[in-house]
């Protein structure tokens, strides 16, 4: 027997930060027994591969609120989970290279400020004060919110993992979910690489693999996995506080607690999870150019390592949260588009509610899986889905 039990009240697919937090809220709400399965080892997916950015500057009220709640959760994390995640609130700085981009950032600023967050609009001098050594003329201005920040992702994963295990949640690593078993039009179990486990509820929190799981379960979904590359430099003494994000090309970078400059850049890649989460010469050269162009003093700094992970993208750039209307018992907690870590604490609570059959406060037009089933499908939207 691979699993500790034959049947579970809920099986969560994905032991990334979203799946783990969901299991945590389920277990705390008495929704057990709960099983979490993951195809890899702990932190082998995007939760162990992201840049650690947590921001509250979003283009919609719904996401601003989820992000603000998540920031509060991460502030408490050390005391609640016993692990130090080094959540450092030294801000997100969005850079605009022209007045058009700045106008767009101003609109975001107005919304964020109207939610009570002290976001600021900066001119070129204000930007230069936050980024020591920025190339002259590299930005006309930007927006900044100091309570945004960065954290160290691994301890967050360990912390929630240990918490759910002490709450009695079973975690099976190295087990791939192959699709759900359907009986009488409802979820009855989950087929895995290690056999089938009976359950009336499956939470799909499989990140880059969530589209595959939905489709293997007979559900057509618009989720697309896209590979995003990232690199880290040699560790330097602290010189940069905020996470810096450039609107035009998606360049983002911050300096970690260890002193490494960690960042990435949006590049077009083939969709899908093949050929794996590797690196390409194209990314290394493009990223180095962008970084050195913006901050020439970094030129002599060595790139220490590069890696990549998968975003789970949706057409409108918002996550998919809630029960699939076509298959009772199949709960979506996916489509985070590279923002799973920053939204996990707040969204996982609502994914857990959905798994328990309870209502959530989420705007269905923005987050429900139903929005992709409407006669007129959701049009792709370009968003500030950066960093």
């Amino acid at each position, binding site marked *: 027997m691979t699993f500790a039990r034959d049947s579970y009240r809920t099986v969560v697919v994905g032991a990334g930060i979203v799946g783990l937090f969901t299991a945590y809220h389920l277990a705390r709400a008495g929704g057990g027994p709960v099983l979490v399965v993951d195809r890899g080892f702990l932190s082998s997916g995007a939760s162990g591969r992201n840049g650690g950015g947590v921001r509250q500057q979003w283009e919609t009220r719904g996401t601003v609120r989820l992000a603000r709640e998540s920031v509060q959760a991460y502030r408490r994390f050390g005391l609640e989970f016993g692990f130090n995640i080094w959540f450092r609130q030294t801000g997100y700085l969005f850079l605009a290279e022209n007045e058009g981009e700045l106008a767009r950032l101003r609109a975001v600023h107005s919304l964020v400020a109207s939610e009570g967050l002290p976001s600021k609009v900066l001119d070129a001098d204000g930007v230069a004060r936050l980024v020591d050594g920025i190339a002259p003329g590299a930005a006309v201005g930007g927006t900044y919110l100091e309570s945004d920040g960065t954290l160290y992702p*691994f301890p967050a994963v360990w912390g929630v993992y240990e918490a759910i295990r002490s709450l009695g949640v079973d975690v099976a690593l190295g087990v791939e979910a192959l699709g759900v078993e359907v009986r009488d039009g409802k979820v009855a179990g989950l087929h895995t690489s290690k056999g089938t486990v009976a359950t009336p509820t499956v939470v799909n929190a499989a990140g880059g693999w969530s589209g595959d799981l939905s489709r293997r379960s007979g559900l057509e979904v618009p989720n697309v996995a896209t590979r995003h590359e990232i690199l880290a430099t*040699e560790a330097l003494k602290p010189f940069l506080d905020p996470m810096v994000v450039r609107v035009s090309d998606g360049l983002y970078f911050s300096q970690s607690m260890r002193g490494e400059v960690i960042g990435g850049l949006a590049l077009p890649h083939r969709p899908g999870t093949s050929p794996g989460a590797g690196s390409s*010469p194209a990314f*290394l*050269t493009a990223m180095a150019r962008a970084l050195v162009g913006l901050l*020439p*003093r970094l*030129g002599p700094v060595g790139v220490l390592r590069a890696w990549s992970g998968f975003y789970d993208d949706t057409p409108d750039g918002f996550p998919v949260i809630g029960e699939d209307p076509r298959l009772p018992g199949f709960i979506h907690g996916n489509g985070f588009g590279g923002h799973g870590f920053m939204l996990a604490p707040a969204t996982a609570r609502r994914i857990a509610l959905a798994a328990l059959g309870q209502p959530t406060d989420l705007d269905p037009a923005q987050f429900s899986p139903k929005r992709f089933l409407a006669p007129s499908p959701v049009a792709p939207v370009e968003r500030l889905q950066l960093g």
Partner: protein
Amino acid sequence: MVGEPDRQFSFRGRPRAARDGETLLSALSTDRIPLLHRSIQYHRPQGPLCGIGHCTGCLVRVNDRPNVRACRYEPASGDSVTTENAWPSPTWDLLGAIGLLMPGGVDTLHGLRRPAFATSLYQRFVRRLAGTGEPPTEAAFRALSAPSVERSSEVVVIGAGEAGRAVVTALVTRGIRPVILERDLHPLTVPGAELLGATSAVFLPPPAEAGERRFTLLAFREPAQGVRVDAGSVVVATGGYDASLLFAGNDRPGVITADAALSLTAPSRSPPFRRAVVVGGSRRAAEVLGACGDSVEAVVAPGEIRPDVVRAASDRGILLYPRSLLLRADGRKQVRSVQLRDRNGGTKTRIMCDAVILAHRRVPHAQLFFQTGAKMAWRAGVGAYAPTVGPDGATSIAGLFAAGSVAGVGPSEFAVHAELIADAVARGSSPSQPATSPLAEEAPTELIGYYRELLRVPGHGRWVACPCVDVLVSEVERAVRSDYRGIEVVKRYSGLGSGICQGRYCLPDALLLLSILEGRPPAEVGYITQRPPVVPIPLAALASLPIRPAAEGVSP
């Protein structure tokens, strides 16, 4: 190559001189191995360990450029060299108190969380401690700027050591003119081939389309010149390197690998030690005795000592300690003595010395193969991974060959092997079904047994498992106790292997350590995906290369 000491530079404000063709490390190692650096977290005194441009032990700041490896930099007249991560100096560093006050290490995973109001204070303090060098200046970047080098060649050979040169010679006789990349600052040339010296290959993804022979190799030439080579076939002859060893004080100044000892022992000058202890009893130890035997006090071997080493030692009156456990290197700023324990009788011995030369274990420099996705196999004899290769050096990737010791071929076979490789390259044949060929000298060693004994030594938890990131053995043990299993997870949990040497000097030890702690064979502990680049490459070098989005492959 080495001439008069006529390059005048300043080191920490004092005038120094280097000869033409001499590295900064060599120039600073006049009478002893210098203390140049403090470890990143606990500020333990650290000396150069590897001598071949990988470890953190000789990082200095040159003309406002941080983290320059002194062993790979030849000073120019007027250079200003300062030290990093130490105040007021590496010899007397106030922050060394951290290591003294908290010898068991600081638990940054669980500690420093309470009281909540102090969190930002802790953070500021810990953040101040992070990193090695101050960031560079823009002027330092401008001084480095150089146009990139791009080559397209039928064959590229990586490594111009004996094996690589043999392959190049064999290719040239077949009318092929390869490009050779060599890390050494002053490599020997081979007629008929283009040699790029002082050039480190850093990234070799597989071809964009499986089976297609179109490799793109990224490299850089010292100090920061971008290099890209396109080639139909790649022959990797990167050889091996001398591994580290776990014992107390294993990164004290004076503890060096045989690579470093040999690189610091130029024919025209005496080595920067007088009475060294050589660790190891086989071929590498013999090489060290051959090069600087007059400055060696004793040979200490984990197992038996080979007859030729015994002879070489006896000729010079060097003491022999076979089957010994190296327990500790003592000396606050500089190794003064080592302590051994006889593995049979348990007798402890102390040997006064001014250097410890690690020549006990040579592991293949196989990092590039991991990037290509070539099939790798665990080699028990050396306790490391190496590519599986056929008799003609072919790996599981079409067009990718391994030559020399990285392929498990011994020096006496280099020439014959080179002919087979050159034939296969010239034929352009698809790979033969690669079979693991036995590594030269793959005698059954007792590595695991040795490490098992080490882990029973009291206080071993305070030993440094990863000198680049300051990870202690106790932290690895704690990860395993908390049920985090496998090297990939333990790496993320402890930080081990994520430093500047890319795991070269901790992973070979860590794999054995984890095998013992987890109670399963080393091969099941797994290996860390060797992410690109295999040597840190300056952003300036990458930025100088034109961007070519589509045509390139992705590492696994």
